[in-house]
């Protein structure tokens, strides 16, 4: 190519230059046009951190929420309740999740990224926890809190122990070892059952229930929950603490004693306990769901989600409100039941929670 030729002549003859110009113009055309958001669109990325037992629940809710709001996305990391709260208060998450409500100190702290009005917690679902066992010849089994605690402490080691026989007249209990299969590490199910012991077992230690079994507890395993379920299936005399979604129709479960009454592990019994349970509205903290052991089975993980009352951006506040409403909606709760076998909070709880979600605002609103 000689530079003395007129430019037009050069371009006309040089395919290379034509290709360069065409490519440049195409790139410019490609990068020039940009869509704008239709008014009223709920869009954006929602980020949450919380307990592992809500990971499946969040996935179930996300399905419905995203179908209603296709221009949105959600990222949830099961790093634990404490990590979630810290992330929410430091502005590293827009919601958090855990198995208990916020305390007054946590909710009212004005020094966090949630602004001067602090944070709220609302119940989002209830996951019943059952005591599954593997005794081929025993179809019904009753256990009270003291016996169950002694089984997991290793004090009661045989199924035909006197204290178990006393609760199950007419049932032939085999003289075989009780083999606990328990989760090693922090777990919401463990927290739930330790809470049950704290309420119901005479002589339980004082203090907050722990989410972990004490060191030395027999039968601890770091396996996945489905592996522990398989192990229970393969272990005559085995006993384990499992959530409703894992138990399904696969295992026999013990009737547990709440107060003076034994209740079976069933959806209906748990629902009765929820319906009769109190809805507590703590001003400045949020809503709390109680379960009534007198009316039904009340060993469960009550899942909560935590939100700021105020976000720095209207779009984020709208995203959060939209999420909260979707989680508490009938379709959201149906999805939680379908995918995770979780039960909905009571109607009064849902109504109070929806009211609170509606108060979430941005700094400018």
């Amino acid at each position, binding site marked *: 190519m000689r530079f003395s030729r007129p430019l037009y002549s050069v371009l006309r003859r*040089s*395919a*290379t230059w034509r*290709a*360069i110009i065409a*490519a440049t113009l*195409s*790139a410019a*055309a*490609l*990068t*020039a*046009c*940009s*869509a*704008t*958001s239709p008014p009223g669109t709920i*869009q*954006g*990325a929602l*980020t949450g*951190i919380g307990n*592992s037992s809500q*990971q499946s629940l969040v996935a179930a809710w996300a399905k419905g929420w*995203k179908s209603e709001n*296709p*221009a*949105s*996305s959600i*990222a*949830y*990391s*099961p*790093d*634990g309740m*404490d*990590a*979630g709260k*810290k*992330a929410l208060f*430091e502005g*590293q*998450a*827009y919601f958090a999740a855990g198995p208990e409500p916020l305390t007054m100190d946590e909710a009212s702290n004005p020094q966090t990224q949630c602004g001067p009005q602090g944070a709220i917690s609302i119940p989002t679902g209830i996951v019943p926890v059952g005591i599954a066992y593997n005794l081929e010849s025993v179809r019904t089994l009753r256990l009270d809190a003291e016996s169950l605690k002694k089984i997991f402490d290793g004090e009661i080691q045989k199924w035909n122990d006197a204290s178990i026989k006393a609760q199950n007249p007419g049932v032939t209990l085999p003289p075989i070892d009780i083999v606990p299969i328990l989760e090693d*590490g*922090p*777990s919401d199910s463990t927290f739930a059952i330790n809470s049950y012991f704290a309420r119901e077992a005479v002589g339980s230690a004082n203090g907050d229930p722990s989410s972990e079994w004490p060191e030395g507890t027999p039968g601890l395993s*770091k*396996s*996945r*929950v489905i*592996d522990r379920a398989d192990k229970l299936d393969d272990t005559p005399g085995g006993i384990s603490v499992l959530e409703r979604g894992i138990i399904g129709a696969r295992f026999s479960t013990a009737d547990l004693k709440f107060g003076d009454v034994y209740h079976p592990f069933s959806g209906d019994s748990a629902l009765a306990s929820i319906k009769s349970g109190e809805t507590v509205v703590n001003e400045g903290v949020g809503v709390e769901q109680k379960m009534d052991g007198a009316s039904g089975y009340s060993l469960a993980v009550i899942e909560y989600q935590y939100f700021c009352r105020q976000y720095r*951006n209207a*779009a*984020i506040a709208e995203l959060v409100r939209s999420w909260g409403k979707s989680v508490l909606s009938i379709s959201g709760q149906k999805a939680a039941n379908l995918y995770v076998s979780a039960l909905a909070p009571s109607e009064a709880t849902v109504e109070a929670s929806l009211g609170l979600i509606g108060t979430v605002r941005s700094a400018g609103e």
Partner: protein
Amino acid sequence: MRTHKAAPDRTVPPIVTFLRTFLFLSLVFSIWSVATPLMAFPDEPAHTIKAAAVVRGQILIDDGTSFGHGVHVRVPSYIANLHAQDCYKFRADKTADCAPAIPGDDIYETIGVTSAGSYNPMYYWIVGLPSLILTGSPALYGMRLVSALLSAAFYAAGFTALTRLRQPKFPMIFAGLAMTPMVLFLASGINPNSLEIAATMAAFAGFVVTLDNVHRLSQVVPAIVTVVASTIVLANTRQVSLVWLLCAFASGIALFQRHQIAAAFKSRLIVTGMLLAVPGVLLGLLWIYLMLHAPANAGVAPEGIANPQPDVPIYRAFLTMLEKSPEFIPQYIGVMGWLDTPVPMVVIVFWCLIFAVTLLLPLMVKPRRIALGYWVALALLIIVPALLQTSLWRSMGFIWQGRYNLPLVVVLFMSVGMIARLIHLPTDGVTKTAARVMMGALAACQILSFVYVLRRYVVGVFEVSSWPSMISKPEWQPPFGWVVLTILYSALMLAASYRVYGLLFPGSTLFSVRRFRALGTTRDRLTGAKDRATSLTQDAETLLPESTDSSPTGPRNHR
């Protein structure tokens, strides 16, 4: 009117060869970039979010921002929200029109989550630049095009270097064969894997050219520069990229004799090049050190979620990887999208044939010692990924994909090409016919792969053929439309086949322009066809590098 081009002049400046190759590859990669829906490349959202964060000054990981699912950064909302594009992910029956538009006015700063938080920022800083001046989908296309140009530059440098081998024909052919549909696809998205493959290819090419010309190094300074640049880039791409570089060097060294290697490392030019690379490598090592001491995760996901098989012993993880090695071959050839769109079986079969020939060819060359570089490359391809995956087993489970090995696959192919220099290629009619068929089949496979992947996004892939729907009822269209992109891509692939054939048989052409005259029934059709063919031939010839093999009969057999 010319019917064929004469053997190219050896004195074509490397910069001209580089620019032409760069332009050609840029066009190929750009077409893939435009044809593929946004965020349809594997892990593209995470890398795009990282790029937008890095270019906004978020380079290191701050305390309290690292969680189980990734690092939290602050980016414009339209970028943080890129995971909303995942409606068609893992679902080949879903078209890309289910993904929402990416608005340009959704720019408030919000939390973005990236799993690439600990990656070296160099690649991301370059790729993230368009997001500073554009927003919405234009910004994302801009970032893709920058990434594609980066890959094109290194591939072009590699091919340019190869032209300076004493017998470049077969190394260039095999380097071209290594450019499977998967390699072309990956070069077009936002993912440092693309640069990793390109830079490893360039590093190996420059390295073997340097050793091949050890007694006239002043004539291959561009190749030395290519090695230095590739080394610096690989040291600053991913932590594993340095491993690929070492593997490339080991394979290259095994291809040459001790005295050649010794002479190379005594050369002032080589030593200068090494010294120039040192600061870049140290920078990369510094980054690795910083990430090993980065703030811990704010929380820890429980066992069983982090690794679904925590009880499996390490040695079984290693054996599992060895066992799975052949299963990666389809992924080397073409499993596009989020591993949900394999290329047609005929393409897989054809390229498996190429793999078989590539793996068996060195066994036919004597003396056997010549093939040492091939054996080293093959052993490294099988063993190194197995070791790397094993080291990650406890923390992450089995996460390995075939595309991670592609740098070593490219090195393997080029090693075979180097050995194949000893083979004499006959120039009789039968050989030329066979070569024409192969070149045509190669072009057809590349075009078929391209349009097949387009179909997946335009109408979806079902049990029943959906090809007619592409014409009658396309549900999604890429920018410029799938028809235009397919025509452009086809022209480029035919041009490449034309050029490769000319490389194999200097003085011959893949197809004769005269034959076009015999087609058609009217003078006007003939004239029009002739003009288009001539134009295509001329355009094709000017887009690609010229072969420096001036021998009309090919190299002599060195047995």
